[in-house]
């Protein structure tokens, strides 16, 4: 559905965890609608408890799904970066192979579709977008 002529670049931040808040699910529906309307989205920035969206070891109940799979599908189809803040992720136990090795942990927990980035990428997401929307916890 296309409402206007303007094609915009959106930046999105997600601040709440799946099952702890609706933030990730609400942001996903917004992102899907934005892409469907012809807008673009370079990066979604997961911060605060929002980093839990990227936990690669979740076993969601069938009738209570996590938004994670929706993010992965959307990102693959439209080349969107799913960026997880490293400082917020490390203290909540979300680590990729590189961090696992650096800190000598038993395993990595991050879903491979998500990448670990610094806080500078949040500023970059704001500076590179026409509109920036925060989905709060």
């Amino acid at each position: 559905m296309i409402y206007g002529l303007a094609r915009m670049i959106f930046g999105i931040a997600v601040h709440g965890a799946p099952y702890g808040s609706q933030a990730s699910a609400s942001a996903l529906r917004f992102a899907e609608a934005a892409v469907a309307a012809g807008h673009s989205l370079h990066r979604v920035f997961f911060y605060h408890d929002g980093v839990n969206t990227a936990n690669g070891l979740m076993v969601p109940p069938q009738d209570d799904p996590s938004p994670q799979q929706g993010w992965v599908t959307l990102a693959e189809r439209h080349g969107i970066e799913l960026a997880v803040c490293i400082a917020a992720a490390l203290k909540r136990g979300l680590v990729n192979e590189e961090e696992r090795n650096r800190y000598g942990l038993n395993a990595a927990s991050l879903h491979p579709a998500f990448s670990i980035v610094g806080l500078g990428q949040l500023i970059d997401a704001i500076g590179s977008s026409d509109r920036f929307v925060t989905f709060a916890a």
Partner: protein
Amino acid sequence: MSTLHVINKANALPACLSVAGAHDALLLIEDGVYAGTTARSPQRPLYALAADVDARGLNERLGPSVTVISDAEFVQLAVDHQPIVSWR
């Protein structure tokens, strides 16, 4: 350009209203939609997100100043306003 305020907790609406301009758009999402029920909704025009209204069973319970919109219309509100401010 005027501001889009996105309210995701009903209790955050008063704080938002205290700094919202007359031409700003106010959108209730998630548990913010309870602020649009007849027992408490303010006079000024408000939008409310359909998916959140439907899930909570509030379709027949919103005040007359509340307009229910789709996810696509939320995106269009975000196109038409800047900045976009979240209130929780």
